[in-house]
């Protein structure tokens, strides 16, 4: 009898809580529906299609196409253009990443070291991040122009008789693009480092002073650098991923030239896909690009687990 009473009391309650839960689940699904549809149509399906495409000889406008297995990847191994693009991309990333990180860290440390001019310098260093890349590429084109460019005019005045053709000599073009890439990334890295620096507890510096650190370098080694560990790792990965995507400056300034000296991965993919309309081959290059990005992320998670997390 008491059980019956208890059941009579509890069952409407349970039912209503179940109804509540069902309502919550329904709403949860409903709220995810628009994002889910867009995700499927704009990200998931096309990305899967890219993977499939990489194993076909599909060309835009072609009447027939077929599965060709790994032939695109085999072609890639033979393709001198692809090899150069891959090499150039790696060189570009290897150039831009360390330099823009060092300069970004340097700028952040210098700004953080005093009270004067913080907002001003932060704004100046950040300006390239918010500037229209294509327009700034045009400005660089003028700045680096072999005959009328201010840089070479300056070098000539210094006594350099034949200053380099920055963007049209195969010896210099990759270096010039790299310098522009560094210029673009410093501000972004600086902002991330500034955020990292401001998260370091002031008391650690005070403890370091009481513990007997005499120089700036001592405190940097004891506190700043280790405490920036997670930030640095993050900046490292994000800069590599950002610079592996180099496209705008190449498309505007050199289009991969001269003689493929500045050909990079995404530009090759763009040319194969949208100029030569060889979508299958272009998709295969895209997959290589994707694998490189995934590899970087994987390395980051590995390192994150191991070293720089202090719990």
């Amino acid at each position, binding site marked *: 009898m008491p059980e019956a009473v208890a059941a009579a009391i509890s069952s409407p309650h349970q039912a209503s809580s179940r109804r509540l839960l069902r309502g919550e689940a329904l709403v949860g699904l409903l709220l995810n529906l628009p994002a889910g549809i867009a995700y499927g149509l704009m990200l998931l399906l096309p990305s899967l299609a890219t993977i499939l495409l990489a194993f076909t000889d599909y060309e835009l406008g072609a009447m027939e196409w077929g599965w060709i297995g790994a032939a695109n990847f085999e072609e890639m191994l033979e393709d001198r253009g692809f090899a150069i693009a891959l090499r150039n991309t790696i060189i570009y990333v290897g150039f831009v990443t360390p330099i823009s990180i060092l300069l970004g860290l340097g700028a952040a440390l210098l700004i953080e070291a005093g009270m004067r001019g913080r907002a001003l310098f932060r704004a100046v260093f950040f300006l390239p991040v918010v500037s229209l890349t294509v327009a700034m590429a045009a400005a660089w084109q003028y700045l680096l122009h072999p005959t009328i460019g201010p840089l070479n005019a300056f070098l000539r005045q210094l006594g350099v008789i034949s200053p380099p053709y920055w963007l049209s000599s195969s010896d210099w073009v990759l270096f010039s693009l790299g310098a522009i890439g560094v210029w673009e990334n410093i501000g972004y890295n600086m902002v991330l480092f500034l955020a990292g620096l401001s998260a370091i507890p002031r*008391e*650690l510096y*005070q403890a370091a002073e*009481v513990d007997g650190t005499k120089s700036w370098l001592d405190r940097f*080694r004891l506190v700043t650098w*280790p405490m920036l560990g997670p930030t640095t790792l993050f900046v490292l990965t994000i800069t590599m991923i950002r610079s592996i995507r180099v496209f705008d400056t190449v498309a505007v300034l050199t289009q991969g030239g001269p003689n493929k000296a500045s050909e990079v991965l995404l530009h090759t993919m763009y040319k194969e896909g949208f100029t030569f309309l060889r979508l299958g081959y272009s998709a295969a290059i895209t997959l290589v690009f994707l694998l490189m990005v995934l590899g970087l992320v994987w390395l980051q998670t590995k390192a994150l687990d191991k070293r720089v997390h202090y*719990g």
Partner: protein
Amino acid sequence: MHGLSIQSVSRHFGEVRALDNVSLDVAAGEFVALVGPSGCGKSTLMRIVAGIETADDGRISINSRDITALRAAERNVAMVFQNYALYPHLTVRENIAVPLAMRRLSALERLPLLGRIKPGFSQKRAAIAEDVGKSAQALGLGALLDRKPGQLSGGQRQRVALARAIVRHPDAFLMDEPLSNLDAALRVQTRREIVDIHRRVGAATLYVTHDQSEALTMADRVAVMQAGQLLQVSSPEAIYHDPQDIRVATFIGSPRINVLAAEADAAGFIHIAGQPSGLQAAPGPVSLAIRPENLRLASSGIACRADGFEFLGESLLLHARHGATKEALIIRLAPEAPRPHAGELIHLSFEAKHVLVFDRHGKRVALRNHIAQHQEMTLA
């Protein structure tokens, strides 16, 4: 002087006077607690002693050596921070070794690889390792030496901070609210440990806290600070029983000391709400302060209305209101004492020796009628 000496230190933050001509001596081996409400300037004073903040004016010296112009690194002063400020990327062992490495090893020797090659390096390393081991042993950290601070409990971290502070045998030992991040039970236990460590280290110790019970239980002398001024520096007993300033009397003691406004007539006889009290001091308005445990229920005396009770276990607090002035009063009674019901008229009495009299500036004044000292004041 042997120990720490703070002479006429002042510090302003813009318009705010954080420290106003503060002087304080801490003898070698002495434990002084600096207590005051938050924002009173006690932490600023400690930071100035440590050398991580500068004074506008005044001198700091340790063992008669003027260190005012020296940097923190050159002072041989150790400090325990409120949140311990341990280096999260270093193990316990490395954390404790930092002050020794910074002092005993040259910049070259501290380089990760290069240092190893230098002659004499391994002896120095061994000496540091030995001292770290001793200091860790003293605090019972032997088993935790290879952990990182992130893997330790709050109490363990606190001990690492202490070990890091004592490892170098400092001339002065500073502690900035070191117990405030611990839970209540651990706090009481750690008090004793800190006092023990202090006794073993023997350095002049300045201990900042906002918790008066910490100050009273741990220190040889207590310095009470308010609004940038040192009000009184005395033994815990004197601070409690013999405060020289009404702000000290009201800050120390829980529940708060009872304060009654009163007036001494031309002859110096003190009247409470017009009633003669039999006490005598200099003429003028005065405040009478009596601790709750020194008031008792009587058949006649200060007329009050009972308000309510708080049962504390070992005692019973009776809340009452002065019949005429409506000033709130608290009386500490034995737990089994009969309880008047709310609104009931009661009378309070006290012994003359227990009443503290302050002039209108809040300064303590002496009672004139010494004969009456042991007399029960019942106010006719």
